[in-house]
């Protein structure tokens, strides 16, 4: 019952949360009606399903005593990958959503309200400044 045991348990719990989030994001990716709602599933996949288990794997790599000093390399590279994914995935999703909205590549079929379109029609917001 040392520190290693607790860290191992925490890392397995994090990897399990990642598996759960991946399955939820996969179901959402197939069941959601249009592209702009599927972005939500993609962000669950990126942050919940990829950031969390990579952090878990880094903590798990830190506990492997028999692995020698290269376990620090493994853990550090894992942390760097996780932080890259946490920073770059929402930026990429936002870019893709903006491009799909303004190029009208994605159909907005079950539409409740589109406030941006109304604002552009009224002239309060121009397309180049959004």
């Amino acid at each position: 019952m040392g520190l290693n045991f607790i860290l191992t348990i925490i890392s397995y719990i994090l990897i399990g949360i990642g598996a759960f989030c991946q399955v939820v994001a996969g179901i959402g990716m197939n069941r959601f009606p249009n592209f702009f709602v599927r972005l939500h599933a993609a962000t669950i996949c990126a942050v919940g399903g990829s950031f969390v288990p990579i952090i878990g794997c880094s903590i798990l790599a830190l506990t492997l005593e028999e692995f020698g000093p290269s376990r620090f390399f493994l853990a550090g590279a894992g942390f760097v990958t996780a932080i890259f994914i946490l920073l770059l995935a929402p930026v990429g999703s936002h870019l893709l959503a903006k491009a799909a909205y303004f190029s009208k590549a994605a159909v907005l079929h079950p539409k409740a309200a589109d406030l941006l379109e109304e604002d552009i029609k009224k002239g309060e917001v121009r397309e180049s400044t959004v």
Partner: protein
Amino acid sequence: MYFIPFYLVAVIMYVVRALKGPTIPDRVLAIDCLGYVLATFLVIFSVYLKSPLIIACAIVLALWIYALDVYMSKYLEKRELGE
């Protein structure tokens, strides 16, 4: 290691969406998710197989997914891939 089948089920669902996707951004989004699952797999297997060579691919893969997003959004807006 007991969590790998859940990830594989998610991979199957993303592949279904990537093949079926009605528009281009849907396919790009599904391929992004496939890339994130692959990066997670690389990290998990590098810890499981105790091989630090594999994890260097995961960083590059995360950056490539971002590059795919940027280039696809630029292509969708301007219909070209830059200068």
